[in-house]
């Protein structure tokens, strides 16, 4: 049996999934089984093989739609992981920054800037979230412990870093 249309669709989908970083051979195996079942079913209803394949592909959805559904799912998962990492890093930074033996504010600011920039670059949809997750702990701890507000600058630096990361990503996407 000739499954040219199905294989062409799957090859295109594989490319789209790879491009979005969601490539999984098991996904293609699963979708191939689905398409073969759908084709078989349509043929039983009297369609020619070619028409049955076209119907199966139409029902599956365009490559763009299916790839977008998989990459959206992957993005959600990655965002959750990154948020956890960002919060842990933010807490660690605020702990280090609060130590009496630590007096290098420049390094703290640099790490906040770089970390938020990296997060904004990796996941540019919500830069504000990375800024808050990393940069809010230092001022929070200082406000609670010393009632001073100068370290709110860390939050500002976090926002600058996250939005700069997002900007670099957007520029790279356009290029």
């Amino acid at each position, binding site marked *: 049996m000739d499954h040219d249309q199905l294989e062409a669709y799957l090859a295109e989908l594989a490319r789209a999934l790879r491009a979005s970083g969601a490539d999984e051979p*098991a*996904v293609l*195996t*699963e*979708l*191939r*089984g*689905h398409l*073969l*079942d*759908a084709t078989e*079913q349509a043929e039983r209803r009297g369609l020619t093989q070619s028409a049955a394949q076209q119907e199966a592909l139409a*029902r*599956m*959805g*365009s490559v763009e*739609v*299916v790839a977008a*559904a*998989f990459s*959206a*799912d992957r993005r*959600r*998962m990655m965002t959750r992981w990154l948020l956890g990492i960002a919060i842990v890093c933010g807490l660690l930074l605020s702990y280090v920054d609060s130590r009496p033996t630590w007096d290098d504010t420049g390094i703290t600011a640099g790490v906040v800037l770089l970390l938020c920039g990296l997060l904004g670059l990796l996941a540019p949809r919500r830069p504000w979230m990375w800024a808050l997750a990393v940069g809010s702990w230092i001022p929070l701890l200082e406000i609670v412990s010393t009632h001073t507000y100068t370290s709110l600058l860390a939050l500002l630096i976090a926002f600058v870093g996250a939005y700069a990361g997002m900007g670099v990503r957007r520029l790279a996407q356009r290029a």
Partner: protein
Amino acid sequence: MNAEALKGHLELLLLAALQHQAAHGYAVVETLRARSGGVFDLPEGTIYPALHRMERAGLLSSAWSDASGRRRRIYQLTPRGQQALAQRQREWRQFASAIDAVAGA
């Protein structure tokens, strides 16, 4: 029916489709289409990310089966999935009756 309108309820529908028996993706789609009288006609490829996500969340388990030279991934509800289905069915009934009370009057 607009696929967007289904999105928020997709997990409930998938859980319900797998309530009585384990099934592969195509069979799940066919169940949804048959039970809804053809109203739920979403791009079939988009149910797979949802099935995978639900498996990661422990609501479903899956196993590969080879039959007639074809590999299929068979999904079934886990005990947690059964609980989630019961809860979502309750929430849905409450929501639907509230909507009906307001909009159906």
